[in-house]
């Protein structure tokens, strides 16, 4: 895990310095500097030192002294930026996760129970449509409807302007501003998890323990909820771990951009656009940490649950 993180920092650093025509000193200096000022700044920030030294300096500032400062936003410390962006992303992803878990379990169960009726394929087509929608486009359509076209109607007049209010300063506003982003972000996952859950439940139908339970005379509903759903949740939970981590790690970037939520994704996006290496480095390491960590966790969980996939 540490090796992958190390390789990622090297890669980010490498990509940045393969980018000619972008002089960090120029970014640091501001609007209209003297050529002499550029020389001075290059020296001040150690940009005139050999690349390995610069890499180590950056790592030291990122992990040890934690006083890394941004290039394009001169003087701004990177760590506080990430620390203040994290609650936004967590609020977004956590709320969306609650919605998608509840709705997808309901949908998956309903489809499994209603197998053979017209509702099963209907639910699955709805799920597939959810999976097929680009999240940024869905977000824009939501904005179009709730902020503009139907904003004056009773249905959406409560929707506040785009943005983020911290939970601590105004919980009700926090909730109102996040409802639409939550729904938007969760649509894809509702579709996906409903399909997975339905497939898993139906798969267990022919398993011995389910047949035994039925034979024992336990009610269908009880078998479904107590036995089939429970077994099927193993996959569900491990997939959930991966997705949740990926979203917290910056995967919610598009949703944050569309709804103007100042989370880690938006921070990454802005720093990428100004090629602001320190911020890019910090956000990428932050995101990679979550993803690698979750991957490792899920791999371990999988190997523990299912000996067949243990690496040979």
């Amino acid at each position: 895990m540490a090796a992958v993180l190390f390789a990622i920092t090297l890669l980010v650093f490498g990509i940045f310095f393969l980018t000619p025509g972008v002089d960090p000193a120029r970014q640091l200096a501001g609007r209209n500097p003297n050529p002499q000022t550029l020389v001075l700044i290059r020296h001040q920030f150690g940009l005139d030192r050999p690349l390995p030294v610069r890499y180590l300096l950056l790592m030291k500032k990122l992990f040890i002294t934690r006083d890394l400062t941004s290039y394009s936003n001169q003087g701004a410390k990177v760590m506080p930026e990430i620390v203040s962006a994290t609650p936004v992303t967590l609020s977004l992803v956590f709320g969306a996760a609650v919605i998608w878990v509840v709705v997808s379990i309901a949908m998956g169960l309903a489809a499994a129970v209603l197998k053979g009726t017209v509702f099963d394929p209907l639910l699955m087509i709805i799920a597939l449509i959810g999976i097929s929608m680009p999240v940024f486009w869905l977000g824009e359509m939501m904005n179009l409807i709730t902020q503009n076209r139907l904003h004056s109607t009773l249905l959406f007049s409560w929707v506040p302007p785009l943005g983020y209010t911290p939970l601590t300063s105004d919980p009700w506003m926090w909730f109102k501003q996040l409802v639409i982003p939550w729904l938007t972000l969760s649509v894809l996952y509702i579709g996906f998890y409903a399909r997975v859950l339905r497939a898993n439940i139906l798969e267990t139908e022919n398993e011995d323990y389910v047949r035994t339970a039925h034979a024992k005379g336990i009610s269908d509903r009880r078998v479904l909820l107590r036995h089939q759903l429970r077994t099927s949740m193993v996959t569900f939970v491990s997939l959930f771990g991966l997705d949740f981590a990926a979203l917290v790690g910056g995967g919610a970037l598009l949703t944050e951009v569309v709804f103007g939520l100042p989370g880690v994704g938006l921070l990454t996006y802005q720093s990428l656009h100004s090629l602001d290496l320190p911020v890019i480095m910090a956000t990428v390491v932050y995101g990679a940490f979550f993803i690698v960590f979750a991957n490792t966790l899920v791999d371990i969980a999988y190997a523990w649950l299912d000996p067949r996939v243990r690496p040979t």
Partner: protein
Amino acid sequence: MSQIVAEQLHQDQAEEHVAGRSPWALAGRRLLRDRLALAALVLFLLIVLVSFAAPLYADHIAHTDPFVNNLNGTTVINGKRVPILQQGGGVLKLGETPIGPTWHGNYLLGADNQGRDVMSRVLYGGRSSLLVGIGSAVIACLVATIVGLLAGFFGGITDGILSRTMDLIWAFPVFLLAISVGTVLLTAPNGLALGPIHIQAQSLWLPTLIIGGVYVPYVARPIRGAVLSIREKEFIEAATALGASNWRLMFREILPNVISTVIVLLPLMIATTILTESALSYLSIGVQPPNASWGTVIDDGQQLLYTRPIVAIAPGVMIVLTVLALNVLGDGVRDALDPRAKLRIGK
């Protein structure tokens, strides 16, 4: 974004692989009997056809060049000459609003901020989106098959190195890759030369290669898993006993058995790569102007979302239709190749 591929991945992991030498003809017949999948295939082919007919539409119906600004132009609607961009109203007369949908040949869906015909741009955009989507999915599947074969067959150090590289790509944000490579190419005077391939920053190859590369791990993992389980089968042992070389084993014995996995994944991968391309272009780091893709048209439409929402709606609907068709088709292909799966994913 690659949820559906992950879904497939999960199923391949959970399922004991018994592809065997399944008769392809049988699978084909099963697919043809699947009406929903067939309808999806027809829809997809229709979208491809219409998109590749974009120049015909632009030249003969819209009579416009969708890549040239037309800010001062006028057009004739119902015999009346109207400006394509209209100055704002009120006392202040701020802003310029492009013409809305005319539902005529010219400016059927109206114009964008630069006075360009939206319908033509959506059609041309489809061409780029499909080229990049299909191209990158094919690249991802090809590279992943090779990587999966090597890693699964040889195991040990080869597997270790390849798997760790895949982990690295998996954890690396695709947006960073796209922006930085894009900026490198833009700032380098002559683009990038990779042997015979010469890539300019505006080239469609750039997003194609980047997206293709990013999705290699998603396909390589299930293939590696399939190779791992096939390697233990009797017929491989038999072939080994007969003195077959490693390469022969890999390409003559194992490859035909994992190819069905790749074929099942391909439509789903195209769906995924089209979505990724649209996201990158929406963030203006995918297809570069003057080229358009569905994502870039949505990006243009964002500026006009409240006044001319059709500019953002039209390309979005095209994406949803295309991706939905591919996902339904993917389900159908899987059912056809592996009828037992039909029980699992409902129809």
